[in-house]
């Protein structure tokens, strides 16, 4: 990731983060304040529910008082006093009383609580009443109770009165009319939960009543108010916050009153804030990107130029310079870079010069050393000839003969030394042709076969050549010469015994040739200098063998590497391309 991208990302994320933080904080604050208001509204509704309940209870009690003074009830009371009382004619009386008084439930009971007449379930005459709470004595105040009906249980406000020996139960259902009488504020409503299948509102039966089951169960189990939120559908606005209050009669839960507040407005507001936040964040990111781009353009352009300059220098372009456009830190950096480049260039020239001097010195030293060896016998031979002429003229011919032979031999040595230097200097260009590298290896091994066992040596050869004949574009003579130098080098490393490993293999680019010995190995410093011309670790030699190998490999577009460790031998690896680039 570039510095510019990073800078852009940081600035954009910072803007988006700030917007998200502000949006979230605003949303939370608004939600909390709305929840506080809703809680207050629901509490007011609960209070109103209690007042309405008391009011309806008083109304039921008043109606019950009227019922017990009605002529029909008095007639039933009188009939009950007869020993052969017949209540059959009064079957419809409870219904008539309910209709007259506007009550939902009226039941007329015998003293044993068996039903004489029931307004809502006429067929239950003669059966014992099953919703009068038996331990309750007739009382003035109304109480909540569940009333069984053919259609299921209802929750009602009931009261009990006596007319002589008979009992009158009067009750009003807590139904949608009652719920609609609760003047809930906008967005509020009251629900009455009777069971998991029956929940009523002011508009009638509530759909999906099972969604309220969890809250209702919590309220009935704990017998305390419980609050929660119901999501009625997948529509995000269709959410409602509820306070569930269990309706208790003694310890019995008769139902649950749900005071609900629609969260539609709140959800809409939150959604608006969210979208506003998203839009602001998007705009911020875009703006931040533009600003960041403009800023980074100004900041990173000099840095980019510096990077380019450094890359050019790394690529060998020592003339690369960076334009200085400002006097700030970036400008100072550019100036320093240019100065550093100049210093580096001067340093490199000095190093090259020093290396050249060192190379010449080394060449002179090597040349002096190489030339000194044949020159010293020559000098001794000539001095011996001079002494023989002066002191022993009779032996001069014999001495002369021996001395000239020696001199010729030494001159031959001088010629050879000079030839090697000349060969290195005149390294010819390779003549490329398709060459089987395995053939080259076999040819070289044949050439060196006698030397492997000469002078008491016991060198084993382990040639592991690739199965396929690897044909590469190469000069077979130069390649053979390079391989020969490596083999010679290995033989020098193994004076008595050892194993010479030679392997060839196919690579993606062409072929690989490795030559390993089991000699003493080289130190890290020796490895580093080994390919330097005229450098040698041996007491004899010109130090040109591996330099020639490297030159040949380089002319073939290949690469040679050396791995070695003290006491573990050395391995030369040559990678050659199959085709040489034109």
């Amino acid at each position, binding site marked *: 990731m570039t510095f510019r991208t990073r800078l852009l990302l940081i600035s954009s994320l910072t803007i988006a983060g700030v917007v998200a933080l502000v949006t979230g904080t605003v949303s939370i604050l608004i939600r909390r304040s709305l929840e506080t208001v809703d809680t207050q509204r629901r509490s007011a509704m609960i209070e109103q529910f209690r007042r309405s309940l008391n009011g309806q209870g008083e109304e039921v009690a008043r109606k019950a008082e009227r019922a017990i003074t009605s002529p029909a009830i008095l007639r039933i009371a009188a009939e009950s006093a007869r020993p052969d009382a017949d*209540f059959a*004619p009064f079957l419809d009386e409870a219904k008539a009383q309910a209709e007259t008084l506007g009550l939902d439930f009226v039941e007329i009971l015998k003293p044993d609580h068996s039903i004489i007449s029931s307004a809502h*379930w*006429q*067929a*239950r005459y003669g059966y014992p009443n099953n919703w009068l709470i038996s331990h309750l004595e007739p009382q003035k105040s109304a109480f909540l109770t569940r009333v069984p009906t053919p259609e299921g249980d209802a929750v009602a406000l009931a009261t009990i009165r006596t007319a002589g020996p008979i009992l009158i139960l009067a009750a009003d259902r807590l139904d949608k009319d009652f719920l609609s009488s609760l003047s809930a504020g906008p967005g509020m409503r009251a629900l009455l939960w009777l069971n998991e299948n029956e929940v009523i509102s002011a508009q009638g039966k509530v759909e999906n009543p099972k969604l309220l089951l969890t809250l209702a169960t919590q309220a009935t189990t704990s017998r305390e108010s419980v609050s929660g939120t119901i999501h009625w559908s997948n529509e995000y606005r269709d959410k409602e916050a509820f306070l569930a209050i269990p309706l208790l009669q003694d310890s019995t839960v008769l139902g649950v009153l749900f005071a609900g507040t629609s969260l539609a407005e709140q959800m809409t507001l939150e959604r608006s804030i969210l979208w506003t936040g998203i839009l602001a964040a998007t705009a911020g990111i875009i703006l931040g990107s533009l600003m960041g781009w403009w800023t980074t353009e100004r900041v990173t352009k000099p840095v980019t130029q510096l990077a380019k300059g450094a890359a050019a220098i790394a690529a060998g372009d020592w003339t690369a310079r960076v334009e200085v456009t400002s006097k700030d830190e970036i400008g100072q950096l550019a100036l320093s870079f240019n100065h550093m480049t100049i210093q580096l260039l001067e340093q490199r020239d000095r190093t090259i010069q020093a290396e050249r001097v060192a190379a010449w010195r080394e060449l002179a030293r090597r040349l002096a050393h190489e030339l000194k060896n044949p020159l010293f016998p020559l000098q001794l031979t000539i001095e011996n000839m001079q002494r023989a002429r002066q002191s022993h003229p009779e032996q001069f011919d014999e001495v002369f003969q021996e001395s000239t032979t020696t001199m010729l031999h030494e001159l031959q040595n001088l010629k050879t030394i000079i030839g090697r230097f000349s060969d290195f200097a005149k390294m010819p260009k390779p003549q490329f042709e398709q060459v089987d590298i395995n053939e080259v290896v076999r040819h070289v091994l044949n050439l060196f076969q006698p030397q492997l066992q000469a002078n008491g040596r016991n060198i084993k050869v382990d040639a592991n050549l690739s199965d396929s004949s690897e044909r590469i574009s190469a000069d077979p003579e130069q390649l053979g010469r390079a391989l020969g130098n490596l083999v010679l080098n290995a033989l020098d490393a193994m004076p008595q015994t050892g194993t010479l490993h030679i392997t060839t293999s196919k690579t993606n680019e062409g072929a690989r040739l490795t030559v390993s010995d089991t000699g003493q190995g080289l130190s890290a410093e020796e490895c580093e200098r080994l390919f330097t011309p005229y450098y040698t670790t041996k007491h004899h030699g010109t130090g040109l063998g591996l330099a020639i190998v490297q030159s040949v490999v380089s002319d073939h577009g290949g690469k040679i590497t050396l791995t070695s460790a003290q006491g573990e031998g050395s391995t030369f690896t040559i990678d050659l391309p199959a085709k040489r680039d034109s």
Partner: protein
Amino acid sequence: MRLIRFSWIAAVSAVLAVSAERPRYGGELRMETRAVLRNLDLAATTTDPEAATRNLILSQVFETLVKFDGSGLIVPNLASSWTHDVSHNRWLFHLKSAPMGHDGATWETPFPMPGQRSPLRVLRDAANPSAALIRKNTDDTLAGTGPFRIAEFEPGKRLRLVAHENYWGGRPYLDAIEIRMGRTLREQATDFDAGLADIIEIPISDIRRTRSIAGHNTFTAPMETIALVFDANKVPPNAREAVALTLDRASMHSVLLQKQGEPTAALIPQWISGYAFTFTSTRDLIKARKLQQTTAIEFAFERQDPLLRSIAERITLNASEAGIKLSTAAGQSADLRLVRLALPCADPYESIRQLAALFRAPSNGDAYNIEKELLDGFRIIPLFHLPVIYHASQKVRGWQSTQLKARQWNLADVWLSGARRP
């Protein structure tokens, strides 16, 4: 003192004079009924709830040679006497003074009738509405011998009868009768309160209410049976018997039916069949609990019928005492239905034969065996025989329960107080 005595005598005389008001000719009687008459085919008798009323209407136009009295015995009607040959193959009914039909023609007497049946069967067949004397004229009008003839007929809605001036029993008092058909009990009550009807049918629950208003109630002999009918393919016999054992007929009769009609375990009433007492029922909740195996039975009934609804609710409560759950359902495919079955005539064989046909049961043998076959296995559980209850306005006179007890309308004897012939 003498003055006071005369005054008392005068007042009592006046009251007697009023109460002994003589029948008056003229006027039009307006009746309403739930029954629907869609055609004048007397042979199209069925067991739907209004079938009996339909026969009663048509009996005012078309008469049979003989008829059933209030005890179920055959008595003369058009025929004053009858004879047959030794082999009972040929019967001759001697008519009352050659009755004149609505078309002015008379029927020949004696009236022949084929036999080849038992004498009782021949007489019962002759008493059935389908055996009424009818003459089809060239203009496709039907002529009978009844006290009224058809003046106007809107099938299913309205029937207007006018007095048959030459009725063999003497001209009816009424000039005409307007019968509106297919009227619900609520519509009839509304029309009566509005003065648009003189005689209406009322439900049992209205008996007490109508006693307090002007007019009088009359009751027919049982004309329908309320019964539970199981789908034998869905409910096993044990469950059917269990339901039968939970039924508290006495309580329903005394409270829901206000002691009207009679609880029964037979389809045909005792006064018609004479053997109904052999079918008995007892309530045994312990045995019912042992027998009940079915967890829930679908129970259907006509929810618009208040009486059926209250009986059904009570049956549900009775069954729940034995742990049987009757869940309310709709339609003819329910496991159990509470139905009204009409008793179209006073002939036990004809009635039970029609019921057997209704339930696709065999109708071979005598009436008892047919009924026994129907009731075996508790496929059908009879509950009550119910009368039709009429409420007549104060001006309707001569509308007598004695005739109604014999399942007959005596409209020829009915007259209207204050009526005048134009």
